[in-house]
């Protein structure tokens, strides 16, 4: 790669239309992702404001993770960027998740 190349060679292929499951959508991938985020948010609010069942929290958590992953992969370009950036994100994230799980399984008060 020459010095003249810019920083985002991997992103230059963003087109004005997106092919999704064989269907051509006349918007760039960024707009399609925003549409998906909006739809998921509406679903999330509908689920969250309804009566909570045993699956409500796992489903809401799954939707939140899906939305975050979309932003990180497409808007923050981890899908195409240098792998080292993903590692830099994942190391503290894994530490944080383990710590939170640990805190959640420890009894809140002494026996």
């Amino acid at each position: 790669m020459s010095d003249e190349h810019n920083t985002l060679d991997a992103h230059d292929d963003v087109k004005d239309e997106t092919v999704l499951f064989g269907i051509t959508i006349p918007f760039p991938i960024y707009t399609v992702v925003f549409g998906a985020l909006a739809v998921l948010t509406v679903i999330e609010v509908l689920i969250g404001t309804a009566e909570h069942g045993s699956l409500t929290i796992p489903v809401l958590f799954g939707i939140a993770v899906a939305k975050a992953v979309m932003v990180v992969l497409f808007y923050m370009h981890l899908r195409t960027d240098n792998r080292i950036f993903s590692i830099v994100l994942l190391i503290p994230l894994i530490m944080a998740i383990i710590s939170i799980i640990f805190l959640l399984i420890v009894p809140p008060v002494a026996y």
Partner: protein
Amino acid sequence: MSEITVEQTHHEAPPNHGHASPHARAENLKLAMWLYLGSEVIIFSVLIGAYLVFRFNYPELVRAAQESINVALVGLNTFLLLGSSWAMVMGLLNIQRGNRDGLVRWIGLTALMGTVFVALQGVEYTELAHEGIAVYGNEFGMRFYAMTAFHGFHVIIGVLWALFVIFNARRGNYSAENYAGVEVFGLYWHFVDVVWIFLFTFIYLF
């Protein structure tokens, strides 16, 4: 006189001798931002972890507080922040294609949405204060305000940064060949969006 000599020597040196190439410099900037965001992951995780422990151990207190929350207002705010992330990345796409005016317009929209987000958060805080959910004397309130206000502070910093990007763009500092500054700002802004995705779910919907 000696300064002039140094300057001349510097100009005569071979290109990139002892300096990172523009590509390497941009990658370094992005790595630095990702390292910073990694530290932010830990900070926000402490706040979120503390809230989740409270949420699962005292669900009745959280349920009572959630009845005072205006989910429609917060839902609108969530759309604003998601929309601002979209506007941000569209600005990046524009400058990648050499459209500086497009960059200014889209980043301007990002800043506007961020500003409205903070303003509506102020409205929400006022409503909650009237409902008795305050920073002091309320178990839910102290955790709620710690998380959302810290996030709001990040949004305010992001808005100021967006204005700085617009200022730079108007001065012609970005082009289709040089937009690392825009992308690094974008990483920050999208991270703030990702944090809100989790805060919205954990605080308002769980």
